[in-house]
């Protein structure tokens, strides 16, 4: 990690008490022309964390619009499967049909969208190629085992309808080309609470869609990035003030170091973790002692998947989509030139 000068507006945005300066990243460098070679040379991508549902990537020496493009594509253009049509066979619960349908639509369904095609909007039937059929059939009944002797206290079964009750009904030859059973990502999403005698009998159709059309198709809970903070202590801060300063930042950002004489000094230990609270501005005495900024070429990128797709494949998919978008653009430019 290169040391960044906080005073250089080209690389850092400065956080003042009331506003941010030099926040724009797209300023053209006069001395350095942007070329793909330089970009390839300087670009540095580190995968900090790569869990199933959470991915943390660091980008260095990249422009904000490109990172933002990934974010926007992930959020609204990667297709997933979600419940779109609900056929109500029986609904004696107090929940309205449309309300229930809306709730069901928001449940993430673990199904690989790459295996399916988009379905026509007016198509009510669906084909094995574009539709997943699920069913939800449940009734709240008396628990036959409940009695004092058995010690079972639940008087009724199925008081709560959870997403685990949603079952896959393979259409046509679906079971042949779909290896993994299709089911909701989470088993414990509470859909409804029902009373004895109430029942639900629903047929659910999942279709492929993208987040731009409806948030339920978005493969992520959220995807975002932040700029790497830079903190500089311009004059040494000792003793009690050091402790106070430490409390003004997130945990672990400032460390109080004791030198041999027992004198305590505040030093920046880990600026990366700071939440940009700028609380040192609460104290007049720190206003001139701290300089804070954001590294404009250093992005910390987070993908929080809903669990339908792994966060890694989400990112790969977004790269694919960006590439295809670029290709489309180039082709169209070419066509324009030719005509």
């Amino acid at each position, binding site marked *: 990690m290169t040391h960044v000068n906080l005073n250089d507006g080209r690389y850092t945005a400065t956080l003042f008490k009331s506003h941010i300066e030099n926040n724009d990243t797209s300023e053209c460098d006069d001395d350095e022309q942007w070329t793909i070679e330089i970009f390839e040379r300087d670009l540095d991508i580190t995968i900090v964390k790569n869990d199933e549902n959470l991915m943390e990537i660091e980008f260095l020496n990249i422009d904000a619009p490109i990172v933002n493009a990934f974010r926007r594509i992930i959020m609204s253009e990667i297709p997933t499967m979600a419940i779109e049509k609900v056929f109500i066979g029986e609904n004696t619960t107090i929940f309205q049909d449309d309300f229930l349908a809306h709730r069901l639509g928001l449940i993430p369904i673990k199904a690989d969208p790459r295996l399916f095609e988009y379905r026509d909007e007016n198509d009510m039937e669906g084909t094995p190629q574009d539709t997943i059929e699920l069913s939800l059939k449940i009734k709240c009944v008396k628990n036959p085992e409940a009695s004092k002797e058995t010690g079972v206290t639940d008087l009724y079964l199925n008081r709560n309808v959870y997403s685990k009750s949603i079952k896959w009904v393979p259409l046509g030859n679906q079971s042949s080309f779909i290896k993994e059973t299709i089911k909701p990502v989470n088993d414990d999403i509470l859909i409804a609470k029902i009373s004895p005698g109430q029942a639900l009998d629903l047929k659910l159709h999942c279709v492929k869609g993208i987040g731009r059309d409806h948030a339920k198709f978005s493969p992520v809970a959220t995807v975002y990035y932040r700029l790497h903070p830079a903190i500089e202590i311009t004059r040494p801060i000792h003793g009690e003030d050091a402790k106070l300063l430490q*409390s003004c930042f997130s945990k672990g950002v400032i460390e109080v170091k004791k030198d041999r004489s027992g004198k305590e000094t505040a030093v920046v230990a880990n600026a990366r973790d700071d939440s940009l609270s700028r609380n040192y501005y609460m104290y007049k005495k720190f206003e001139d002692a701290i300089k804070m900024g954001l590294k404009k070429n250093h992005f910390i990128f987070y993908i929080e998947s809903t669990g339908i797709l792994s966060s890694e494949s989400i990112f790969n998919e977004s790269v694919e989509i960006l590439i295809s978008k670029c290709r489309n653009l180039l082709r169209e430019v070419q066509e324009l030139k030719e005509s």
Partner: protein
Amino acid sequence: MGNSNLSFLNSLSCQKMVTIEDKGKLLPAFLGMKGLVKQHLDSFNHFIQVEIKNILKANAEVRCENDQNWFLRYLDIKVDSPRIEEGFNVSRPTTPHECRLRDITYSAPISVKLEYAKGQQRVVPSEYLVIGRMPIMVGSNNCILNGKSYAERMALKECPNDPGGYFIVNGSEKVILIHEQLSRNRILIEEGPVCQVTSATAERKSRTNLVINKKKQIVMKHNSFTDEGIHIFIVFKAMGFLSESEIVEYICGTLKENGEVDVNFLIPSIEACHKAEVWTSQQALQFMANRLKNKSSGLKAGENRRFSSIDLIRELLATTIIAHVPVTNLNFRLKAIYLAQMVRRLILAVDNPEYIDDRDYYGNKRLELAGSLIGLLFEDLLKRFNSELRMITDKNIGKVAAAQFDITKHMRQDLITNGLVNCIATGNWTLKRFKMERIGVSQVLSRLSYISALGMMTRINSQFEKTRKTSGPRSLQCSQWGLVCPCDTPEGESCGLIKNLALMTHITTDVDDKPIIDICLYFGFVLDINLCESGSKINQHPLVFVNGNIIGIAIQPETLVTTLRHLRRKGLISEFISVSINQLHKAVYIATDGGRLCRPYIIVNTSTGLPRVESKHIEKLNRGLMNFSDFINEGLIEYLDVNEASDAHIAIETKDIKMCVTTHLEIEPFTLLGVCAGLIPFPHNNQSPRNTYQCAMGKQAMGTIGLNQRERIDTLLYLLAYPQRPVVKTKTIELIHFDEMPAGQNAIVAVMSYSGYDIEDASIMNKASIDRGYGRCFVYRNQKCFLRRYPTMDGISDRIQGPIVEAEPPHKPIFRHAALDNDGIAAPGEIIKNRQLLVNKQSPIPGTAIDETGTGKVGSMNYSFKDVPITYRGIEDSCVEKVMITSNTEESFLIKLLLRQMRRPEVGDKFSSRHGQKGVIGLIVSQEDLPFNCEGICPDMVMNPHGFPSRMTVGKLKELVAGKSAIIKGTLHDGTAFGGTTIQEMTEIMQEYGHNYHGKEVMTSGITGEPLTAYIFFGPIYYQKLKHMVLDKVHGRSRGPKAVLTRQPTEGRARDGGLRLGEMERDCLIGHGVSMLLLERLMLSSDAFNVDVCTACGLLGYQKWCSYCQSSRSLADIQVPYAYKLLLQELQAMSIQPRLKLTHM
């Protein structure tokens, strides 16, 4: 009551002083005991238990003119619990919910015990006889919900949090609003000065004025006399007080003393009396008789003839003038003393404006509630009932009949029943006896939201005219502190005239004043006025008034007052009796009448400066060993009305108590706000009108209207799909259970500018939030359908037919019948499109008698049926949620369908925060375009910061910071008025969890991907979705229906009308000189019509034929507006002959 669940352990530590949190516990106890609409319930209960018996007693006997021996006497009356009568002699208890659903009246039989003469015998039926049905107030003692627990109310499908206090008449919920009026039977000095007394007794109402005329004479004015009035000394003389010095002494006291009253003021009045040559009582009465207005004697014409005019005046003086002062056996002494006091007050007010009373002062006001209004109505109806019985008796008693005349056979229930029901249903209170004609007394309970229903129950209506521009009655009055909410009033014409009660206000009911008079007189605190030998003695000491009547003088007024208060605190006299000294008037006022506003306070030991409520009491309260009435009974808390509160020194907080000065302590200062204003967090930080706006808007917010909302079938119901309780709550919210039935959602708001679609209070909304359910709402509507029976047509009734199916297989129903079930009623769950049928009803039409059998029998008519379908009309589709088939009281079938629409927010829908900041959605933006913070959080809503500077809603800023710190920490924060979480606490939490202490964050633009220059104020604010939605308002047409008469486009959205090019728009077009456009807009696009005009005679022809000229030679075809043609023909119809002269251009 479930209020003691808030357990405070710190009260265990034995402190002598109560802390603020401690005394706040009294509030839930108070509301738990009384409920939120205690004033309505108390009033109605008082009517049913006490007042109705008094009314019966006053009208107990009916006699007739034809038979002196005949009589009918009521002995007792009672009102049972509500029942419905189904068919003949079948009746069963009913529930409010059943009445609402079936469109029937929630009423109970009124039954009387009576004795009457049957022939020569006296008959006393052992059973009570029903004379009518009384609509029962929901929640009153007679209501079946009374005393029911939470679970029991649920079982009856009633919302456990429903306040009650309304009536159910023909299925609709009606509230009798609280009416505000000036208090009766009190001396009131008005600007002028004029001394006015409005007297009201059970029999009579009258107004007596004392005025100083131009000649400086004091004159009494009354409706019965001519306008110049009667000189006051003549009135005294007519009452039998002949000595002028005696009269002067009654007015001014001893002449020797240099009293406050200037005797010289009376000289012109005495002179006037002398000039009129009135020396004796007879002369005085004659003088007054001469000035009697012709017709208005106040007594009936029949009585007029029997009395001499002098007797008449004497009667008038005794019963009508200052009617509330009793005159027994023509002993006018008390009335003369009262009149003297009036003169005295009048003279005092001439020099000293302090003596002029404030009409808007709440001590001079009385509130009229459902109980007394229904009481008036019932008495009127009972009198009519009795007179009807008398008439029937007069008609029948002489006749010789097979059966002996029995009055009980002639008692019809419907007179009283219908009288009560009609008045409550229409709100027209017309009582000829009191010349009372009021409209809008009752109103439909607004069930838009829980708050709107509650707000309606606490509403106070003023009697003042709305059109008058006077500011006095409209402005905030100092004396309404704590009793009437300072915020909650509508804007516009009724501003300040419609008010709302504060949270703790109680309205008194009538208490018998006899015991209190006895106490005063027998214990020797008060010297009986009849024992005061002279006027000088009377004027030496403070007078004692009980409900406006002088009962005596108090030698030691302080002792009297403290003793009475002591007795009250001991519980020996009613807690609602008010005793106060008025130093200015030199009087002790004791009030026991109903309609006074009062409020509980903690009593403070004045000598020690310690509140009587101590920690140990609160501890007992928490443990359920004490309830609120115990606090009253043990003399720890007492009710003070406005007059007594003016006499007290009340500390707001414990720390404000001053030794030897403070007499009372407020329970909680935020109770000075009402229910609606209580929802606002940090209202004390807002600019005052903003709180007023919120009070109006809170009533339009969608959310939850009751826990039984899904059982109801209302004409219009708005529900929120995901209501949330506010993160920043107030104590009022908890007290009224708003957190159980919320109306709004906690939206994450970014205060920043975004695009240009957020100017002028528009806001930007996140599409993903809407997708996930933010602001999603349900709109319910109902459709009713009756199946009538037609007795004129052989008792044939309407019928419902199944759907018509297509001829060819698969025999699907035709489009319009697609939603119908086999029984011809739309099936639950079906989606209904525009113009589709809900009920396929058919009505019989009287057809020609087709004699099928050939027998020629009369009556075997063959009726054909015509379609009278119930169709659905709406831009958007609806869904049938419920179908109810039942019967109503007319024994006809009643079918109710509940239709539902789910709506997601769209551009133009109205939202508002709790700070009077309303706005519409200007743009819906997808999530990726919105800014996000360093944790990836996107706003649900973007609000333009220009909303803040001019509105000064600092409370909203505080709500955001409080809300943010609350969700960071994972708790709820409090924003109660004059308290709540402090900024200090909030910033500490924010800092502790690594957030900026201001609530401002670094955010990244979703469009460019760069950080925003400004720090964004970002956090949760509770937003309400208001009922105004674009879908209900969109309107526009290219072509459409026309009115039949004028052939011009129809008007209004409901009729798919055209958009009017009005006069001002027309002026613009004229100004531009675009005559052809003008022609197009006003004629061609509207009602162009071709007419034939005969150029010879100038009249209109028809089909190229002029019937006037009898020729077709010279007809011209021109285009005119149809309305113009209509005008010509209408003029002809009234014998005006318009002729058109045509020329070639």
